[in-house]
């Protein structure tokens, strides 16, 4: 792989994503989601996906689009309640859902990106999340042993990126994106602005390009707001 990670578009970036693969998708709600890649996955119609994503989109946007096409076999998320089609598939048994605490989700991404096979967290101790998991006491406090994620692809969205795959995120659109970028066997980054090496300040890069395999400039970002809330 050359250091120049640029691919033409989402179609080229996602060309080898196959049925039944595990994908991580960045974003929190609809904030910071890889819109171009999601649209491309819908277009190419890949099926049986396991999607690791904090949320599952809404009915007509984000991962909701993949759910609508019944391309998702399993969702691994922390919160999924914004989506009627999701609810229907889940209740009918068409869709498998694994709900895990948000911090556990984040930390299992971090573990993968940092080569740690497993991590300890107190989240979920004494709850049904702990079922079947190893509990271990350190200094008088119980922790669950949680495994690093193992995903075929991570698909993230950044505000800016350079051709070497260095990424910068903006505001709370950062969320899970840099963590998932580190955690995929193959990481695809779509960016609002693609720049040349040297254009980003090396002190301000959130994700080093070593973690990123493909990068492209996305198009037509809708950046939909889920809960538009304003001051009176």
């Amino acid at each position, binding site marked *: 792989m050359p250091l120049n990670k640029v691919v033409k578009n989402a179609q080229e970036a996602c060309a080898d994503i196959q049925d039944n693969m595990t994908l991580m998708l960045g974003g*929190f*709600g*609809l*904030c*910071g989601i890889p819109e171009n890649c999601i649209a491309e996955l819908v277009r190419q119609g890949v099926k049986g996906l396991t999607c690791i994503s*904090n949320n599952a989109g809404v009915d007509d946007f984000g991962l909701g689009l993949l759910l609508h096409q019944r391309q998702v076999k399993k969702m691994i*998320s*922390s*919160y*999924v*309640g914004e989506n009627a089609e999701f*609810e229907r598939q*889940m*209740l009918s048994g068409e869709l498998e*859902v694994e*709900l895990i*605490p*948000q*911090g*556990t*989700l*984040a*930390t299992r*991404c*971090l573990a993968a990106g940092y080569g740690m096979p497993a991590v300890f*967290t*107190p*989240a*979920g*101790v*004494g*709850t*049904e*999340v702990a079922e079947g998991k190893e509990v271990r006491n350190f200094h008088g406090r119980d922790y669950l042993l949680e495994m690093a994620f193992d995903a075929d692809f991570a698909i993230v969205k950044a*505000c800016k990126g350079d051709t070497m795959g260095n990424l910068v*995120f*903006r*505001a*709370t*659109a*950062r*969320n*899970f*994106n*840099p*963590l998932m970028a580190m955690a995929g066997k193959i990481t695809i980054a779509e960016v609002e602005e693609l720049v040349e090496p040297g254009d980003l300040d090396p002190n301000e890069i*959130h994700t080093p390009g070593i973690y990123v395999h493909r990068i492209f400039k996305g198009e037509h970002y809708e*950046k*939909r*707001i*889920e*809960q*538009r*809330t*304003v*001051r009176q």
Partner: protein
Amino acid sequence: MLDKNGIAKRIAKEVTDGMYVNLGIGIPTLVANFIPQGIEVMLQSENGLLGMGPFPISGEEDADLINAGKQTITTLPGSVFFDSAMSFGMIRARKVDLTILGAMEVSENGDIANWKVPGKMVKGMGGAMDLVASAKNIIVAMQHCDKAGNSKLLSSCSLPLTGVKCVKKIVTDLAVLEVKDGAFHLLERAPGVSVDEIVAKTAGKLIVVGEVPEIED
């Protein structure tokens, strides 16, 4: 009896200068409106922001800038963005001083249930399990009884738990209660609410000692 704003206002008194505070969705969000002048706090939003500001004025919403309830928000001078691992890292490391969240049930030993009702659509725990497992201090904001009139302060929770032995204080429409030593301790009553009513509506073990003052406005 307190309305939602009353509950939020009472909880706001628990907030002291310099605190880092995580506010859950619902009543807890309202707490920010009642923090007294001169008390400086930093609100943590677990999706990756410390120093959450008010909602934006119309026309200045930023799709990249939301809180954990997915509402558009703003920043303040001194705000910081970070990724979700660091966000829950600081929560897990107990750097957040106070967590305020809602609940469906709380037990007399401080267990909390607030994420799942069997038979109903499950939306997920979001960050609640991480928050309750690690918070130094947890205050629950909720109604004392559910819509059917059943107490939400129980000897043990009937719903699937979010966390165990973690709730320190509860502010309801009827009362302020401390949770310790396996019981609810009545600290204050809402204006116009009698101790008898609180006793009647608290299913778990309730300790009442001496005169119970009314919540001050």
